[in-house]
């Protein structure tokens, strides 16, 4: 075994965000996306246990494993990432990126309460929130990753925040 368990853990922490981000925008369901990422790392662990070969570029190798995993996933789920029609959200084009004030209000809720609300949201809204707050991606990058207009992303985000705020009594 060329890589030890400690090497695996180090590689995992160093690459998880990149691999997760790659998978995140290609699977609508968050649970499925997380499971898929776990499978990628499980397969990677099996590979390094059984092989003595050096891997030139671990990140690239993991991404190629993720692509294979996604192919299998699409075959079983018969699902492709959905693209939402833009016209529904065109009127929210002017919503600003900075929504700190609204977010401050949300701080009155507990972490679990917030997540319970997020769980009830449409997959796309959930996807945008996770991309923005988990991977610190600006709306423009999220829009590019989802192949959507930036205005759509911003409006969906705004709606999601409003939904959470509406739950505060």
């Amino acid at each position, binding site marked *: *075994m060329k890589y*030890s*368990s400690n090497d695996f*853990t180090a590689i*995992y*922490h160093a690459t*998880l*965000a990149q691999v*997760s981000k790659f998978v*995140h925008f290609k699977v609508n369901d*968050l649970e499925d996306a*997380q499971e898929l*990422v*776990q499978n990628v*790392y*499980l397969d990677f*662990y*099996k590979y*390094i*246990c*059984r092989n*003595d070969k050096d891997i030139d570029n671990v990140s690239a190798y993991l991404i190629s494993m993720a692509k294979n995993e996604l192919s299998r996933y699409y075959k079983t789920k018969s699902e492709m990432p959905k693209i939402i029609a833009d016209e529904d959200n065109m009127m929210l084009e002017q919503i600003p990126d900075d929504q*700190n004030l609204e*977010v*401050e209000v*949300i*701080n*009155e*809720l*507990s*972490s*679990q309460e*917030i*997540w319970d609300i*997020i769980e009830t949201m449409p997959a796309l809204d959930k996807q945008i*929130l*996770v991309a923005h*707050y*988990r991977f610190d991606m600006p709306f423009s990058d999220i829009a590019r990753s989802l192949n959507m207009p930036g205005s759509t992303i911003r409006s969906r985000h705004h709606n999601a925040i409003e939904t*959470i705020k509406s739950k505060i009594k």
Partner: protein
Amino acid sequence: MSNKLKQSIHDHAYNETEMLRKIMNSVHSQGIVPVKKKPFYQTRFWKLGLSFALVIILVLISVTQLDKLHLFDNTTITAVYALDINPSFEISVNKNDKVISITAINEDALNIEVEDLFGKSATTVIETLIKRAEEAGFINTTDLVDDYILVSVIPMNEKDKTQTNGFEEKIAEATKDSAYLQNLNVAVIKSNLIELRLAESKKVPIGLYVINGMVVEPDGTILTAKEFFSDPENRATFQTKGVIKTDKVDRLKARILIALGKLDAIGVDTTDIKNRLITAKDKDLIDIQNEVRKLLNKHHLGSTSEVNAKDEVYL
């Protein structure tokens, strides 16, 4: 941005710690164990290479050496022992002197069972065949006529001579352990494949072919071993080429005493002969043997062999 929303999403989406825990749980539940790097001599490539090399070496050895050594071959005939009692047999043996085949060379031999003797040692088979020949009435080890058994030793090639050269010693050893063989005179003669083939072409047992080469019969008839060795001159001639393991003195004295018993039974006074027999040896013993045989014939107590026998001569 540090706030509850961000914290909640970090806790619940792609949680690094939680995901790693789940991955490692799967690793353990699936029994995935890191494979330790094998030493080079345990690698598949090395094992395959080594196996291939060994096979090549074995093939080369078997092609070049094993055929010569007969290491694993117990069915190769390395020598033939031709036994002439009469009957006559050719006993083929392997390098371990174990009998592979027995061929009956004359009609008398056809009447003797041999099938149960394959795989036994040559000396055991020879002794057994002699006993069976006596049971069939071809020899009588209890009368006063010496019985001669001729064994011709033929190696299959030069290197097998080591095996056949030790045969005389093996017969001597077997005779020591066998009271039966001690009653007999076993003559051993070395021969060769050329003589064997010539004898076969003339349909004459090899042993008789060799010993008859030592005498010239006017009518060209072939003498049996018994006929040949019953003539002291022939025995003397034979000693120049072969070896005769002669009867032991004590055994001959015992046979003479048995014959004297037969004479006592019909009232012949044998006291003088018995007194002389006690101290007799060498030529005196042979003279007593001839004297007693003649007395048996005179009183019609002699066997056919004893009636027809010539006088024994001390050599």
